[in-house]
């Protein structure tokens, strides 16, 4: 079972985290700190596995980003390594040669996509085609609703914006 997924940039910036086991905010920060320290310092020609506190972290670097998945001791490491690649390929397909910037500005999209690939720390779908189809179906659903409510929401948005500006000014 995958305990958590981390995407960390080479500079140690977190780009995505997903926790399938209950970690508190404090524990999460600690884990991220510890693992970035361990993984970012590893040389290029080493194996993709790091042993950590009775778990194994399977990681792979793609350009400036490290994709890490923490799994149980007895899990199949290579299987997880290819889940990472599977996820990257899907991101690639969605964004069209994905780069770190895509994931920074569209981090919410990355979360949608991850949810189509993994649930409960297990692989949900191994067909890239199916995942892509489902993600674009979601996108069009969002778009459809947007268009449908566009006219009304515009009016509301305008109205609220004005009020907010007024509010702000009154604070100043």
């Amino acid at each position, binding site marked *: 079972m995958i305990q958590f997924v981390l995407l960390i940039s080479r500079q140690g910036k977190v780009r995505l985290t997903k926790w*399938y086991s209950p970690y508190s*905010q404090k524990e999460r920060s600690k884990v991220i700190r510890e693992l970035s320290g361990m993984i970012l310092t590893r*040389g290029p020609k080493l194996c993709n596995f790091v042993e950590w506190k009775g778990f194994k972290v399977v990681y792979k670097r793609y350009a400036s980003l490290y994709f890490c998945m923490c799994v149980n001791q007895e899990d199949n490491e290579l299987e997880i390594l*290819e889940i990472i690649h599977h996820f990257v390929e899907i991101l690639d397909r969605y964004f069209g040669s994905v780069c770190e910037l895509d994931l920074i500005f569209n981090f919410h999209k990355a979360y949608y996509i991850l949810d189509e690939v993994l*649930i*409960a720390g297990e692989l949900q779908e191994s*067909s890239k085609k199916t995942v892509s189809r489902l993600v674009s179906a979601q996108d069009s659903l969002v778009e459809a609703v*947007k268009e449908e409510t566009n006219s009304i929401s515009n009016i509301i948005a305008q109205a609220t914006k004005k009020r907010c500006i007024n509010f702000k000014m009154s604070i100043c």
Partner: protein
Amino acid sequence: MSLSGMRGLSVFISDVRNCRNKEQERLRVDKELGNIRTRFKNEKGLSPYEKKKYVWKMLYIYMLGYDVDFGHMEAVSLISAPKYPEKQVGYIVTSCLLNENHDFLRLAINAVRNDIIGRNETFQCLALTLVGNIGGREFAESLAPDVQKLLLSSSCRPLVRKKAALCLLRLFRKNSDVVNVDGWSDRMAQLLDERDLGVLTSSMSLFVALVANNHEAYSSCLPKCVKILERLARNQDVPQEYTYYGIPSPWLQVKTMRALQYFPTVEDPTTRRALFEVLQRILMGTDVVKNVNKNNASHAVLFEALALVMHLDSEKEMMSQCVALLGKFIAVREPNIRYLGLENMTRMLMVTDVHEIIKRHQAQIITSLKDPDISIRRRSLDLLYGMCDVTNAKDIVEELLQYLATADFAMREELALKAAILAEKFAPDLSWYVDVILQLIDKAGDFVSDDIWFRVVQFVTNNEDLQPYAALKAREYLDKPAIHETMVKVSAYLLGEYSHLLARRPGCSPKEIFSLIHEKLPTVSTPTISILLTTYAKILMHSQPPDPELQNQIWAVYSKYESCIDAEIQQRAVEYFALSRKGEALMDILAEMPKFPERQSSLIKKAEDTDADTAELSAIKLRTQQQASTALVVTDQRPSNGAPQASQLAMVMIPTTNDTDHTPPVDQPLTESNGALTVVDPQPSGDILGDLLSPLAIDESRSVHDVGSNDALALAPIEDQESTVKPIGDIAERFHALCLKDSGVLYEDPYIQIGIKAEWRNHQGRLVLFLGNKNTGPLDSVQAVVLPPSHLRVEISLVPEIIPPRAQVQCPLEIVNLRPSRDVAVLDFSYKFGTQLVNNRLRLPAVLNKFFTPIQVTAEEFFPQWRSLSGPPLKLQEVVRGVRPMPLGEMANLFNTLRLMVCPGLDPNAFNLVASTTFYSESTRAMLCLVRIETDPADRTQLRMTVASADPTLTFELKEFIKEHLVNIPTPAKPLPPQQPQPPPIATSDPGALLAGLL
């Protein structure tokens, strides 16, 4: 138009990215948090779009590592939004910000449930994903039936069903009761026929968890798994989109083979043949290719196949193929494959007799110990540790010592510990052992825990031949210019005891030894000074006739420390000074240390305990288990604690079973000063259970390790107090644990371990006793008689009179339950070891609840039955006080483990529990029992219990039985045996722990 489709969000992200330093970033984030907070307060003015935007910003800030302690409510409230875009954001952000323990999540249960049972497929997907990712126990209890419905529904599309499968897996992990075993084996078999590979992959993950929990119930699914594997291996009917780099869904292949590893064997010959054909194809047909991903995927499958072959451990030829493959892998350049090769070789050591073949790769494995990659070095160390035996111990330990000098800090302590254990276990001769430990201290003193040097002192004390050699070595190390403080301690101790054995050698006169040691005194810490003071006293005692000059020197030291601020040092100085004036009497008082009682190496114990930190399947554990049972290694014949034993290592010459035997008859202060070393606490013997119960499936032998951890509801044990052989562990606790499960250890002492495995069917039971002789000598006059109470008919088959060394004897018992009773059958068991007769009376866990078969009743069945059994003696009610306070969930668990199935939802009051079961006996036949517990939320120590069945005795007995398990019974009057296993606290002086803290 910004990338994210939300301008405000993109602007914020850019702002954060443009911050030049952490401080600026914090300011920008704080400003934004303030803004969001104000917006949320003024919620009415927020459009759905804005709410969405702010919630996303919150998540982004959270991801950057800032505390976001507000706004959870807004995120959760979006879940119940009517429109998809808001709902989606609500679900995703909630599942990222919160974990299963957050109270806010509770607020969402209803909204989530509405989406799950609603008709909107996209909403169902969102809800299932959230529950699958962060659902906890409460979700499990309230949503499991709905999720199951979706998974099994024929009208749901695959996209919903695959999510439902994994969602159910999550809920099952949180509470295994949500999947009712009885109904599920058929359903699972049906799910495995699924054509959609997405659904099948998810279902297979669920299946792995179910089968890990109870393989027997799902045996009908085994052939289906093999079919799936065949289909994939032959690439039949696998859609292109499910082929990954030309390999038919490698993940599904891996999962299917993982599931098969939970079945003990494959019995059906056709299935078996088919499976082996597939495995053979995988083993032979996997080549190394250029494409990394293809290579990884095919090797993921290959390694899983290897694991499955190892698990089945039957085809000799295939096993040797596996070893050959692994031998190839550990020599390749590709680091992943090399790592896995080493890891799997270590695993292989435990399943089968491949020691000799693996030993051929020793040179290669040692090369990996010097690999630049710490992950690989760790695997290599573990493997070397696992494969070490008498024949190669010298080579391996010397390699480890050499490596110690250059090893990184992260590994030194483990390395030192492992080297010490191996040296102790497989020493071809004891002087070599002393050499190794002294070298260890010399090279890595900081990483050598006290246990290690205590142990070497024990060995030297117990072996006269070794004493001059050890003293000489200690003397040599003292000549070195800068030595580690631990070395000062051990040298001083050894020279204090045995330097007189060197007296004729040059440079070894008492005076010279004294000045050599005394040189070190200014550089050492207080605990070491205490040891040095003792050493001086011993030197003084050995220099007879007294040398006045030496005497004056030493007395000067003592008078200096008479006013020391440290009480221990002061006391020693004062006492030794006074004692040393007693002249001849000193000889008696400061006599040589007596031999230590034989005990399990505290190092091995420690290694076992630290396992959790390093590796669950670490070789240490496997090793200790193997060694205890196989007796392949001649030097490992020491009993695991203080037992008389003619050992190869001649460790103990005086048989001592009692701790008081070896305290010398001297004055009180002396015992104290001698006691400097007795801090080595006697450790309980290692758990060799894994081996004695070896006929059990692997997963069961793992679970029996927790025998001792069950709560102590124990009654006073029935056992023979006269026996001088002390049992290991608490008998009553073991008995109690066995009442709740069907396999584990019933009794253990230094000579024998009695394990139990039982199967129960209706009113009959079959119980097998596993009598394991832990020694290298036979146990004779073995007798086992069962004294059954009147309600049980017990037949015990003949117990052999002699149990050969290291052997295990099985002794089956047939039990028939005649009528309901709480009386317990007693096993009268005796044996002789040497001249010592050991007799024990042990309660057998053939108790009332073993004849229960849990049954789930519906409201329609329950209420008529409940009403028809009206009043005593068929329905009894009692208010029970002094109940062990426990949350309702725990009580429900207790009932379920007692095989009284809790039927949720029957009682409208949430503080009540209703449970049902069927009781079987010859007189009553199958009889339904109903139980209702009404708890008082204000006072958990009392409750009202109503029990009903159609048999008055049964009702009464059941009521009393439940009471026994609910009420806090005072701890047994008899003090617990001193060797009760308990997790030793992590020593704060442990350098490794300190180091870990610093790092």
